[in-house]
């Protein structure tokens, strides 16, 4: 399986996606810096504590990487079906289930690692900024950092699986556009914030959606050995 994952990454030149993810992280950091230094945001107490800032960063990162994952699904899975290159892949002496599972694992692992790295990068970047600008008066303690890190890890795990939900819509007509549009709907669902209340903070929501993502992945490979290409 490791070899298949490596081949997938080689085939789709994963480095270009890593570069794109780095750029996205810099943009998110820039956005956070811009908002935090904006006086209106200060007035609305959006950046009153590290907890709050890390939560905002996590939400932005989550939204970004759910869409990012849908782009990966579109390239790695949907395009293979649409451009018929899947027929080449399915003529190799490897179970089809393994081939598709390798692709989905690339998406899940990429999203997980990218989500974590982005949270750490932007969080750290903001903490450095705060040293000079004192947007947040309190200092960053180990306990706040550890608690935020735990939340980020749990959130990233859920995000990496729920980001597979668009696969279901994309596979129906092998449409990349449907995949990306459905990912935006998922983002709207898990990244909204109404007066400080987010659906994602209800623990059942991320767990439920992550399970749904896993089910979608399972359904996509369950009968794959028996279908025509």
């Amino acid at each position: 399986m490791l070899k298949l994952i490596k081949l997938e990454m080689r085939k789709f030149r994963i480095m270009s996606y890593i570069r794109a993810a780095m750029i996205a992280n810099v943009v998110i950091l820039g956005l956070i810096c811009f908002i935090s230094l904006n006086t209106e945001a200060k007035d609305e107490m959006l950046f009153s504590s590290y907890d709050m800032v890390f939560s905002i960063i996590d939400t932005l990162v989550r939204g970004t990487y759910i869409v990012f994952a849908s782009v990966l699904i579109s390239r790695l899975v949907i395009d293979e079906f649409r451009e018929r290159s899947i027929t080449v892949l399915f003529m190799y002496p490897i179970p089809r289930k393994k081939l598709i599972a390798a692709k989905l694992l690339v998406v899940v692992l990429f999203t997980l690692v990218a989500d974590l790295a982005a949270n750490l990068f932007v969080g750290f970047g903001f903490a450095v900024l705060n040293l000079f600008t004192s947007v947040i008066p309190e200092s960053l303690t180990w306990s706040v950092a550890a608690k935020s890190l735990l939340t980020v890890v749990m959130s990233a795990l859920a995000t990496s699986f729920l980001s597979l939900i668009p696969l279901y819509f994309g596979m129906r007509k092998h449409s990349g556009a449907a995949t990306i549009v459905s990912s935006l709907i998922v983002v709207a669902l898990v990244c909204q914030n109404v007066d400080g209340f987010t659906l994602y903070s209800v623990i059942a929501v991320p767990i439920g959606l992550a399970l749904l993502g896993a089910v979608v992945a399972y359904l996509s490979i369950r009968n794959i050995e028996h279908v025509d290409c």
Partner: protein
Amino acid sequence: MTHIVRTKQLTRAYRGKEVVSNVNLNIKQGEIYGMLGPNGAGKTTVMKMITNLVKPTAGEIEIFGERLTDTSFQLLARMGTIIERPIFYEKLTARENLELHCEYMGYHNKKSIDEAFELVNLKGIEKKAVKEFSLGMKQRLGIARAITTKPELLILDEPINGLDPIGIKELRDLFKMLCKHYGITILISSHILGEVELIADTIAVMNDGKLLQEVSMDHVAKQTAEYIEITTNESSKAAFVLEKHLHISNVRITDEGQIRIYDCPIPQSELMKVLVLQDVAIEAVHKKKGSLEDYFLSILNGGGIVA
């Protein structure tokens, strides 16, 4: 003789309509097996079923002596294929595509990639992205990919599409060489009769999902042998003279009243002399050779064999 591929009553239906119907193929080891048929005859579907891309509705396929099932992955390692059109990862270079192919196939002889490029005459452009390739170059690259792992069975669906006449000849020679020197069995489909005629040992004629005939080229050669065609108004009398005076019985009278003499044992001049002496009025005499096209069309039209 060992059979590499055998199909028994192979059938595939889509929404109740059979696109392949009770096809029995027998492909022998080391031969070039040509599948002939017009578009929509079911050739590609048969090939897809042999490569496990499409599952049969009924019947069975035996490859290398084993029954093909949905999970017969290991059998695929012994095949090289181009089905419908050569498909690649277009942004990757030709070499990268072949390297990936070898990795997936579990074939680790790097030299074979260079050999394959050389065999299909693509040496020097293997570092180009495939998206810059013409259709003909893609066909060559597809063949390179199919042969790079030295498969026992090569399945090529219309492999000469998009090639120029020189390219066609090169590939024809390549197929013959692969068959002769490497013992590779080749299943090739085409609607270009002349091409199949030049390389195939056995042909299968398909139409409307049915296998109309599976026949060796030796047999076809006999059926499409040279003959002398005589145009006369007295065809019955001419036939009588041929039989009585020259003892030629391998004669056929066509619907148009012409007489065709196969395996004529005497020179044409001698033949004419006897007929004229017996007062048979001759309008024209031609020496002709039946083509595979005649044979093919006669089978497709449901008639007997026309030479």
